[in-house]
Structure formats: structure tokens, C-alpha cells
């Protein structure tokens, strides 16, 4: 099977800091890959390159065989790569459902200027997505009144509203109490499975990694140091020393 995403020899530097120094990575359709690594290893930079926010100085990014290197974020979203952020990016002054409908409108590009929000055909579908993530009861609430954990799930629902084939998540459970973490990840992984979305998530919590990832990629100094199953990677002596910190 050809990879969903292929990253070839990608380089980028910010002044003296080399954030990507020859990154190679293949992503199989349907898998869930965790990215771990010390701070400053270039994990978020990698997500930014894949989503078009940063243009690499060398190398290529292929999505479903098409070269998307350096394309603007909007074009990449349309091709099917969505992203959820470490700090949820939501329109705070809108209700949860309005946020979803705005994303749906961005996806379909059907735009009748005077169409009422209550009459949009995507309404049921969006409520269904919220239900999958277990936050349907917040649909009519304004985002700025919601707790962080719920916002995270709404952020993921928003990304899924774009019907991506690949979803990149930057620390999906950061800033959430440890009791909520598993609940959030369970809902998230189930929703990704239902929608058949391949996912990449940056994570610091090794327990989350071993529980939810099919494969793990270890970042270090702007390179992929190692790729393997969670069991193999977490058993590796170098990884345990540099990343896990044991």
C-alpha cells in the first residue's frame, strides 16, 4: 500500500536553530502515529510544515502521492489534512454548533449569503460529530464558557468537520487533568476510527503513547531518531535516556 503521507529529506532552520535536518517519514493509511521527543526537537515544526504554515528550505512533502510542499494552509486543508491545536483554536464568541457549521461551510464552500444558520443542511451531521465526541450537550453553548477539556474535544470535532483524511494533533491532552485524559483520548480515538481518519499526535505522556499509538516516531535534533511499535521504542535504551528521562 502506498503511504498516505510521505516526507522526504525535509530541512528548515530558524537563524541558528535547525528545526528540521533531513526528516524522513512515511505514514500508512488508518494508522495512529505518536511523535515524542525532547523540547525543541522539531515536533511542532514538523506539523507546521505538513499543514503549510512553514515552507521547508529543502525536501518534499507528498500527500496521497501529490506534492504539497509549500502550498498555503487553506489549499492543504482542502486536500484533506486538518489540524487540532495544543491550545484549542475556536471562535470564542460563537456557540459550539456555530463553530462547527462555519467549518462545514468552509469545507463545502456552498455559500448562500443570506442562508439562516438554523436552516443549514449540515446541521444534523455536525451534531452527530459532536455526539461521537461526547460533547453534543454543549452544542448551543458559547465556547468562552466551556472548560478546557470540552474545548479540546470541540476543537477535534471542528477538525473532523472538515472531513480530513489525515488529522494532526498537537498535544491533544495537554492542560487537561490526568483524570480526564483517558476519557478525552478514548472519545477522540473512537471518533477517528469511525471517520476512518489517519492521525499523528505529538505527546509527552508515555502512558498515552503506549495506549493509543500504533507506531511511535522519536524526534531528536530535527531528525527522526527511531520509528517503531510503542513497546520497541519505549524499551530502547537511548530513547529511555533522552526522551522518557529514566
Amino acid at each position, binding site marked *: 500500500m502506498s503511504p498516505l503521507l510521505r516526507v522526504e529529506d525535509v530541512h528548515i532552520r530558524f537563524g541558528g536553530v535547525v528545526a528540521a535536518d533531513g526528516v524522513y517519514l512515511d505514514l500508512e493509511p488508518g494508522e495512529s502515529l505518536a511523535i515524542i521527543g525532547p523540547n525543541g526537537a522539531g515536533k511542532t515544526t514538523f506539523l507546521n510544515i505538513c499543514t503549510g504554515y512553514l515552507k521547508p528550505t529543502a525536501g518534499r512533502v507528498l500527500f496521497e502521492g501529490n506534492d504539497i510542499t509549500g502550498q498555503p*494552509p487553506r489549499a492543504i486543508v482542502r486536500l484533506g489534512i486538518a489540524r487540532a491545536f495544543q491550545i484549542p483554536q475556536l*471562535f470564542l464568541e460563537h456557540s459550539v454548533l456555530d463553530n462547527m457549521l462555519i467549518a462545514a461551510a*468552509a469545507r463545502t*464552500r456552498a455559500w448562500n449569503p443570506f442562508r439562516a444558520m438554523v436552516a443549514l443542511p449540515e446541521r444534523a451531521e455536525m451534531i452527530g460529530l459532536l455526539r461521537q465526541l461526547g460533547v453534543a450537550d454543549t452544542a448551543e453553548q458559547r465556547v468562552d464558557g466551556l472548560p478546557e477539556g470540552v474545548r479540546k474535544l470541540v476543537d477535534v470535532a471542528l477538525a473532523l468537520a472538515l472531513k480530513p483524511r489525515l488529522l494532526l494533533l498537537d498535544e491533544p491532552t495537554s492542560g487537561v487533568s490526568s483524570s480526564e485524559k483517558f476519557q478525552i483520548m478514548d472519545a477522540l480515538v473512537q471518533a477517528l476510527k469511525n471517520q476512518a481518519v489517519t492521525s499523528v499526535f505529538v505527546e509527552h505522556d508515555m502512558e498515552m503513547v503506549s495506549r493509543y499509538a500504533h507506531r511511535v516516531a522519536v524526534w531528536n535534533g530535527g531528525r527522526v531518531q527511531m520509528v517503531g511499535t510503542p513497546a520497541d521504542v519505549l524499551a530502547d535504551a537511548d530513547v529511555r535516556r533522552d526522551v522518557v528521562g529514566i
Partner: protein
Amino acid sequence: MTPQLALLATLDGIAYAALVFMVAVGLTMIFGVMRILNVAHGSFYAIGAYSAASIVLGLTAAGMNPWLVFPGLLLAAVGVGAVLGTLIERLLLTRIYTKEPVLQLLVTFAVFMILEDVQRLVWGVRPYFAAEPVYLLGNVQVVGIFYTAYQLILLPTVALLVLVGLRLFLRRTLSGRLIVAVTEDREMATALGINAGRVFLLTFVLGSTLAALGGALASPTTSLVPGIGADMIVLSFAVVAIAGLGQVEGAAIAALMIGLGRSFAVYVMPELEVVVPYLVMVIVLLIRPEGLFGVVERRRI
């Protein structure tokens, strides 16, 4: 001041506030969404007024059904807003969205100057007066005062419709929600795949149409001379500053403050008439620098 005079001043003030509100709310919307302070907004008011006067005079001269002048006023507003608004946004503003505010201000000021001369070329410097719509609606009596129905009923009604309509549009329609979303966080809206360019065009045309509507509705009540656009843009800036940038309901209240302040000054201390709007503005800004209803820019993480 007799009660009758006070009532007269109040009616004058409301009628004037209705016009100022329509222009100012367009200006504040454009600024709220696009972050461009559009000096050329005054030109839309002036050209809307002149076009409306031409249509009214043309219809009257052609001996058509006189009531056609009302659709004529609306047509002038929508036509000027849609055609001129689209041209300016697409050809000029799209090039300067990423430039620094000083340059944006200079460019819209240049557009304003050019359009001032275009008005002189097309309509000359002779005053235009096309009061047919005011005569058609006649006068009404309010507590012993005769007042034109056009200014007493039509202008405030249209202003209220604009206020309520804009509120519903921004809250309840997809386009309105998209406009608010782009205002709140343009980067994120783009990340979702929303075409911010299209939202900008829609906003600019809508805001410009409101300015042209203000002009078209003002044309029957005043004589049109070169310079009306400049007067109106300065007043609109005062309204927007008093209300706080991007505030729709606030603009209505600020317009009323300025309208009433000005009309009362006319009767009480005529020499203060011109200064009153700025006095109100200075007092408000001294107490609340962000405007009456403005919010201090939220910190973005």
C-alpha cells in the same frame, strides 16, 4: 427654551442621527472586519447622494409615477455600493491588506481625493436639490408642530431596520457568522479553509452600500454641494470613536448623542453647532479611551 422648541430640536436630532448612523455603522463594520480605516467611505455617501438626486430629478423630468422615486433612492444606494465598492475592494484594497496602517490610510485618503474630483467632473459644483420624496410624503403634526413625514417617520424607520437587520444578519445567517468569525480570528478562519477574501469583499460592499444609502436618503433633505462627503466622514469617525470600533448598537447610540447634541446647539447656542460632535467625542474619550461600548483588544495567545 420652550417645550415646543425642545421637541423640534429632538425631532431634528433624531432625523439627523438616523442618517449619520447608517454611514457610521458601515464604517465601523468595515473597520471591525478588515482593520482598515476607510477614508473613502465619505465618497460613498456623497456619490450615493448625487446619484440619488440625479435619479429623482430624472424620474420627475420624465413625468413618471412620482412614487418611483423611493425605489430610485434604494437603487442609487445599492448600485453605488455594489459597483464602486467591488471595484475599489478588488482593484485596490486587496493589494494593501498586509501593508502597514499608515499606508492603508494614505491609499484610502487618495481614493477619497480622486472621488471628490470625480464628483465635480460628473455633477459640477452647482448645488443639487431634489426634494421630491419629502414633498410626496407631506407633513405630519406632532403636538402642534408640523414636521416632514420623510424626516419624522421614514428616516428613523429605515435606520431602525438597518440596525435590526444588521443584528439579525450578523447573528443568524451563515455569512454573518463568517464575518464575525473572520473578525474574531482571521488566521484561524483561514486555517479552516474559509475564504477571507470573499468575506472582505462582502463586508466592504455591505458597508459601502450603507454609506451610499445614508447619502441617498439624505439627498432630498439637503442641497448637495462639493464637500458633503468630507463633512460626513469626519462625523462618522466621531461616531465610531465614541461608540468604540466595531460596535453596531453603540454606533446607533453615539449617532443619537451627536444628532441631538448638534440640533440642540442649533437652537440654544448656534455658534457651537459645528463643535458639538467633537466636544462629545473628546469628553467620552477622556473618560473611556476605548469608546462607550468598545472593549480593550483581547490578548491573543
